[in-house]
């Protein structure tokens, strides 16, 4: 049996990928893992409730990026689109070695936010999407905590009590100029 395939081209972490023949029914998380060897996006529930598998969908016309669950979204949904996976957050040198973590990644480490780390790629993605949104639509200081809670609420972590994740994100928001008004 051969699976019907369709050529797929997209941009992943700033790099043009494809066209690759990809089965029509393949979910994005499997495409990332099996075709691109980008195994950082975690498959946990596989049914859209834990948000461990999310990636950033980047908008070309300047709108804030969106967080998409790759376990329930088909690979071909991303045809012609641009995404950032967990592998695309840190800065790297020409050989691909990490030279600097992103602000969110660094804050998670400094706050001891995670234990096993299985949920962390999703939290990095969710927090980064939030920061990008706040760059365009800052919030009042009084609303920072509730904004973080609302943005990260769907992310499930089985090890921690979430507090250190939320505190890390708060410190990034308060330390980055322009995200908070008043």
């Amino acid at each position, binding site marked *: 049996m051969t699976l019907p395939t369709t050529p797929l081209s997209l941009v992943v972490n700033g790099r043009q990928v494809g066209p690759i023949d990809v089965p*029509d*029914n393949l979910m994005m998380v499997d495409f990332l893992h099996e075709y691109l060897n980008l195994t950082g996006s975690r498959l946990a529930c596989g*049914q*859209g409730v834990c948000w461990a598998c999310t990636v950033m969908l980047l908008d070309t016309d300047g709108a804030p990026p969106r967080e998409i669950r790759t376990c329930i979204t*088909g690979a071909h949904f991303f045809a012609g689109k641009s995404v950032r996976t967990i592998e695309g957050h840190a800065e790297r040198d020409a050989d691909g070695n990490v030279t600097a973590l992103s602000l969110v990644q660094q804050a998670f480490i400094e706050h001891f936010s995670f234990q096993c780390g299985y949920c962390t790629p999703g939290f990095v993605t969710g927090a980064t999407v939030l920061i990008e949104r706040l760059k365009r639509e800052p919030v009042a200081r009084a609303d920072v905590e509730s904004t973080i809670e609302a943005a990260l609420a769907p992310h499930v972590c089985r090890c921690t009590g979430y507090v250190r994740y939320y505190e890390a994100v708060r410190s990034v928001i308060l330390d980055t100029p322009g995200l908070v008004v008043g």
Partner: protein
Amino acid sequence: MIIRKVWHRVVLAAVVIVVLGGGFALAVLAGAFEKSVVSAAVDTPLSPEEIAELAPKGRYIAAAADCVACHTAVGGAPWAGGRPFEMPVGTLYATNISPDPTYGIGSWTRADFHRAMRDGVAKGGRHLYPAMPYVSYRQMSEADVDAVWAYMLTREPMAVPDRQDSLPFPYVRQFMTFWNLLNLPGNVPAPDAQKSAEWNRGRYLVDALGHCGECHTPRDITMGMMPSRYLEGAVIEGVDAPDITPEGLARLGFAPDRLAGFMRSGMGPEGVMGFAMYDVVHHSTQYLTDDDAAAMAAYLAGEPAPAAPVVAAADLSPETAANGRRLYVAVCAGCHGIEGEGTPSMAPPMTTNAELRLPRPVNLLTVLADGIPWRDFPHGRLQDMPGFSDLLTDGEIADLSNYLRATWGGRAPDVSAADVAALRRARD
């Protein structure tokens, strides 16, 4: 001379008509044509022993009649009312029906309660607005109204004042006498001897307690339910309350035995109870006994039930089919299955989904745009469904809904991007 006589007669006739018409209107206004279905038997109060004995039954009847949905506001004190009803002319609020003597119905008599429930007239002769479904409750038996009365008397009194209606003219209430003349049936239908006891019980559950017609029967220009179009479906809060006549239910794919289960669990191969019906399952139908759920389903499905029509896929243009399929795999199949088979305890199947079989696409388009929040169903919590209004274009949502409806609902693919855009504007 003759002309003068004729002229006199015309004037006289006009005067008579005006006087009679005015007299008639005054008589209607004074309630002269109102007919109470409440008997004198309820003039004696219930004894404390009767109240204690009837209250548990009353709890069940009150659940079947879904009293709590309106008389307990979200987050409000139990039975203290407060749920708002937005009307074009203002907002009505459900009232406090806890037994508080000042703010609730603690000072009412048994007969007052019966008249409110079945005649639409509260203590002191104040007319209720038909947001209170007394047109339906009129068919309740006196025994059942007594049981609810006993149940209410055994609740905690809540000293919560009623919220003031924001209707512009408070004296409109008395004009409900006109409305009642047109829309409140004089009599309660007798049991149908041609039908089984189960069917008759089902009719009672549907018409009297469940007051299904209040949403599922279209209303005429006076806002009264149209008897000629009983349960044929109506628009409620912008979406379709479906046709639940036997033919309507058969077209949606509900076999009688399945319908009973669906009423109680709120989910099944036919999909998930959505919109206002989620609350109805939550507050009411999940508590029906096996027998009552079966009776309700037997009545609604019809005796004998019509054969379920075979739902064959409707034709799609090759472009819509390809684009719809691509979108289905992209954003739906992860949960609803590559072939629409669904995932148990997670996402209902598409293949047998009633929503895709509805004549109009508005419910599907609303769900595709907004998604569905996570829900507590009697057999477990169901995760949320995301909405796609930000992720897909109007044209894509049109293609996707045409694919879904044609493939699994057997409905013609007649949704256009303009329809989706119009709905988007209406909701914004």
